[in-house]
């Protein structure tokens, strides 16, 4: 047990179950509020909520395999396990690919969120300024370290949950349940294909295994991770369903930001209308925490790949890199539909097969050794 090392260690850099839970929920469930929703609705219409569940089922084996390995190796994170399995050079390549995927993904996603914020709320502010500011805040969070991010995530979590519950509750007022049908939307095969395509929605849950040594114990890690995954799946499925019920399937694919349109639509009674800024506040809280974790993870992977012990020093250069890459795409469509979709398409194989491959190699090694 890692706890046995004494109280001193608990205070430093190890996060508890609640904090870890909040981090994973924030990382994953925000994908119901961004352009991911738009791309999924584009293909699977009113059955998009099933894609969320389907993708999760597809990637579940990878989670189980990875969790098994983590338990076996106790103090090692994802790449360290890979090193034990594949050796130094292959791990370097895997690590580098992982780093590239994370870097590009973080860049395009931060840009996408900035655009989202800009289109809906700050149409006249220059992209660069807003983007810079946004990244600066996230960088500030990342700089404070893993434990601090966890604490903040947990502290805002209850309020975010309250806001989300309120949103879902208010949405039910305008939801038309029968818009859910025809139940399979474009067809079962289409859903299965889309589910496979969007596996990388849950990629964050695998990448977070980089932080495995910094969670209190294996039990808390497993419990929080699976709890967070199930919770995220539920939230996302619920939100996707709500969008479909609110806008109907032919319209929902045409909306750029279903989340923002949904929060614009709801009202409390007849007098308190236009409460989108209220929800926006909580959304921003979550998003900033989310990207703090992303930036931290990119640096962490970078630090491991290039043997930089104090990887916190790479946070600033990496954020600058993210800013530069993020500024490249001309607009949202290019950013999300072309670039990020590419990453999602190729990234998913890594997410899916790396844990399974690791498991097989390690089992084989065991067999060879006797």
């Amino acid at each position, binding site marked *: 047990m890692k706890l046995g090392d004494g109280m001193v260690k608990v205070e430093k850099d190890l996060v508890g179950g609640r904090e870890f839970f909040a981090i994973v929920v924030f990382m994953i469930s925000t994908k119901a509020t961004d352009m991911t929703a738009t791309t999924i609705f584009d293909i699977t219409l009113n059955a998009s909520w099933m894609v969320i569940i389907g993708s999760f089922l597809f990637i579940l084996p990878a989670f189980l395999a990875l969790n098994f390995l983590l338990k076996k190796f106790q103090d090692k994170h994802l790449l360290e396990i890979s090193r034990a399995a594949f050796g130094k050079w292959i791990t370097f390549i895997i690590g580098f690919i992982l780093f590239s995927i994370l870097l590009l993904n973080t860049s395009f996603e931060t840009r996408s969120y900035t655009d989202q914020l800009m289109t809906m709320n700050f149409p*006249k502010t220059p992209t660069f300024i807003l983007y810079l500011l946004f990244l600066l805040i996230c960088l500030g969070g990342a700089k404070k370290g893993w434990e601090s991010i966890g604490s903040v995530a947990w502290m805002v979590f209850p309020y975010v949950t309250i806001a989300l519950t309120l949103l879902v509750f208010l949405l039910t007022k*305008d939801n*038309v349940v029968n*818009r859910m*049908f025809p*139940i399979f939307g474009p*067809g079962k095969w289409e859903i299965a294909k889309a589910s496979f395509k969007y596996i990388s929605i849950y990629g964050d849950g695998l990448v977070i295994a980089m932080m495995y040594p910094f969670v209190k114990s294996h039990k808390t890690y497993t419990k929080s991770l699976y709890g967070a995954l199930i919770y995220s799946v539920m939230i996302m499925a619920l939100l996707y369903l709500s969008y479909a019920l609110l*806008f109907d399937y*032919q*319209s929902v694919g045409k909306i750029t930001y279903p989340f923002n349109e949904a929060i614009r639509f709801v009202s409390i009674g007849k007098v308190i209308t236009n409460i989108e800024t209220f929800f926006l506040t909580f959304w921003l809280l979550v998003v900033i925490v989310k990207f703090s974790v992303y930036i931290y993870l990119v640096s962490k992977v970078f630090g491991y790949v290039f043997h930089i012990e104090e990887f916190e020093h790479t946070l600033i250069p990496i954020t600058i890199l993210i800013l530069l890459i993020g500024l490249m795409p001309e607009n949202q469509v290019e950013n999300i539909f072309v670039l990020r979709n590419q990453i999602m398409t190729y990234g998913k194989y890594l997410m899916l097969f790396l844990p399974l491959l690791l498991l097989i190699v390690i089992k084989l090694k065991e067999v060879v050794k006797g």
Partner: protein
Amino acid sequence: MRFFVILIAVCMLTGCWDRKELEQMSYATAIGLDIPEGVDLKEKQAIDVTFQFSNPKLNIKGATGQGEKGEKSIITLTAPDFITAKNMANSFVTRQISFSHAKTIVVSEELAKSDMFFRFIGSALKEREVRRETSIIVSEGKASEFIRKNKPEMMIRPHKYYQFIIDRSIETGLVPEATINRLFAVTDGDADLFLAISGSVSEKKEGSSFKEEDQYIAGSVPKEGGNPVQLIGSAVFKEGKMIGKLTGEETRVSLLLDNTSRIEDMFVSFTDPVEKNYKIAIRVKKKTATDINVKLRKGPPKINVKVPLEIELLSVPSMVDYGGDMKKQMILKKWIAKEIEKNMIALVEKTQKVFKSEPFYWSLAVRPLFSTTKEYEEWDWTNKNYPYADINIDVQVDIIGFGKQLKESEMEKVKD
């Protein structure tokens, strides 16, 4: 650090990017859309946009309110579309025009009947200030006239007028709930008819001869005094284009058949089944959701509709004792059910024959029968099935109350 201080100071004093003091804006409460005179929409894209602004001066002590100068806060101009009209208007309106509080779009019938209507509204949704919960009113005459002639009683502010009258009319069921969101959901769904609020300006004392309370269309309600603008009935849109009108009564019936509507306070009068020269007034409420059962079969489908209603007796001028007499209650129940059924069947037939589609959002009831959107779209509810469907309507009436007086006075005894 110093950089930030300077940045903040500069931003604060100059106003950066999106910052705008709220008195630097004019808030449009209603937007009117018309076809400009002498312009053929097929050749040139142009639109007459009318803005009605809220007047914040109403709030300043001593300043004159809207009064006679109210006209100044309504402007009309011709522009390629109504988003660019925002900027064009600034050639004579001093402040930036904001749509953030515009909850109503008034469209003239003429425009609504053209192809351009859906294009204008559709493209407007790209603008972030245009909100999906905005209501659509179709006015019989010009939209600009509708807005100009609108003189609400008690001089309330325009946004209050639109908010109150639309909310109230929806409650009474005389007009449908017609938001842009519903317009898009229904039109994109391509299976049902969209009902917009129908409005009209009428200065006439007597619109037409007296009818039952809800059999009017907008503009024909006989009245004296008050606001010349009336909202009653609905405009029917098919595929984004207006194709007809429903009276208040038809609107109510269609709302009763529609499960997505919310009627709360619907007073209806019926001929007294016992004393036929009198009328009784009742309040009608939906008991539970209307049950729409679609049976697929070869050829057109069979649709069984069950409408469970609750009614409350409000006035019985004939003094027939319905409260005390169970037999008469049964007669009343059957009579009302029959009357409502009659209305419903008439409306359904009208929609089948005239509109060739339905405004009740029944496509929702059809959807669960299909597992994929492709099958559903190929089956084509609105074009191939509904107009020929065999529709059976069954109204079930429960009398839940007799107002606060159970029995009527006996007229004979009173006369003695």
